[in-house]
Each structure stands twice: as structure tokens, then as C-alpha cells.
């Protein structure tokens, strides 16, 4: 299998897990996409460093783009997006969706559900324990 084929399989698995298995439905939430955009921005920076400086290298037979296993890849073009193979976006997306979906599933199952992040939200009933002192 090529890199993009595995990427599509993993993303599909992550989406099925989120929507139908764990039923966390996080991909339907605005908050998920907002945080994903932030993570993706930093993925482009850190993954860009790993690939631009040839720390992690790819053989072209499994890639959409050309062979840069032994030379600096283009920033944009020839199957590269900020030096990294475009397929890395699928790799990152599936890993992040698996993570957040499982995290929220455990919260729903009352495993260290509280305290939530930040101070109590506005809709939180006054006087109810929020996990903070």
C-alpha cells in the first residue's frame, strides 16, 4: 500500500470510531476544528523542520510526489506541503482525531471527567463542585 492509501484508511477508521463506535461525534463540533487548525499550523512548522533538514526522509515509491530522500524537498509543490509530504496531513489528522475522541469517550465514562479545563463555564450551575478548591 502507498502512504496516501494507508492515510485514507486511518482517517476513515478514526471518523468511524468517533461517529459510530465511541459516539463522541467530535468532528461535528466547532471546538474540535478550531483546535485542529491551531495544531495543523504547528504541525506545518515542526514537521517542516523534520523534513526540510532531512531528519525524517521518505522514499518516493510510496509517495504522491517525487524523490527527495537525499536532497532538500521543495517548500510547496511536487506532493510537498511545507517541505513534508502532503500525506502527513492524513497521518496527523487520524492521530489527533483518535486522541481527542478517546479522551472525550473516557470523560463520558466518568474517568477523571472533572475538573474541566479553565474556570467554571457560565452555564455551570452556581455552587456545584467543579473540581477546584
Amino acid at each position, binding site marked *: 500500500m502507498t502512504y496516501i492509501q494507508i492515510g485514507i484508511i486511518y482517517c476513515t477508521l478514526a471518523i468511524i470510531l468517533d461517529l459510530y463506535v465511541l459516539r463522541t461525534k467530535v468532528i461535528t463540533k466547532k471546538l474540535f476544528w478550531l483546535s485542529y487548525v491551531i*495544531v495543523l499550523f504547528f504541525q506545518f512548522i515542526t514537521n517542516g523542520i523534520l523534513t526540510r533538514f532531512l531528519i525524517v526522509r521518505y*522514499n518516493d515509491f510510496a509517495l504522491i510526489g517525487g524523490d527527495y530522500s537525499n536532497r532538500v524537498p521543495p517548500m510547496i509543490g511536487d506532493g510537498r506541503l511545507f517541505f513534508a509530504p502532503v500525506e502527513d496531513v492524513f497521518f496527523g489528522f487520524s*492521530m489527533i482525531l483518535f*486522541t481527542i475522541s478517546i*479522551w472525550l469517550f473516557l470523560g*463520558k465514562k466518568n474517568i477523571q471527567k472533572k475538573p474541566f479545563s479553565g474556570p467554571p463555564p457560565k452555564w455551570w450551575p452556581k455552587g456545584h463542585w467543579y473540581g477546584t478548591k
Partner: protein
Amino acid sequence: MLKFSYIAVLIFIFFGTVWLEIILKARVYQKLKRLILTIIPVVILMVIWDYYAIINNHWFFDPEKTTGVILIGFLPLEELLFFIIVPIASLLSFEAVRSIKKEKVGDE
């Protein structure tokens, strides 16, 4: 020092996100049990992919820019750390955004 290149990127990701736990009260590290139970299946899923990619030569690591520590026969130490540090970083981002936006996401 060059052989710590990949490790340096991981340290950058760690320190680039750990402040979210303190300043924005992301409360990810604080929920250690939940965090570990989340990371274990993610590590397993991603190591399976990494195993397939490494044995089929989809990708490889510059021996001069990695420590050369190989776990369970194929997995560079850096890759295992990547599959722990990056999911934690994405959880910190998610919880930090939640702490600011205060929107329900389903586990309330």
C-alpha cells in the same frame, strides 16, 4: 549534538505546549489516569502504521540526526516519544481552546 536533532524538535513541542496546562488551566496532565488510558491505544495504532512504513521503507531516519536507539527491533526512540508528546500537545490545545471558548463538546 547533531544526533539530538529529532529529540530537539520533540522538546520544542513539549515546551511549546506545556504552558497551556498552567496558564490556561487545560488540566490534561492533571488527569493523569485518563491521559495514560488515552495515549496507550493511540501509541498502539500509530506504532502499527510506523512498523508497516519502516519495514516497507516508506520512510527512514537519518542516522546522524537521531540517537540510534531502536526499540522492539524497528522503532526509533524518537518515534515512540513523538507518539506520546504530539497527542498530549493536541489534547492541551483542545482543552485550552475549550477553557477559553467554554463550549460543550459532549463529555460534560
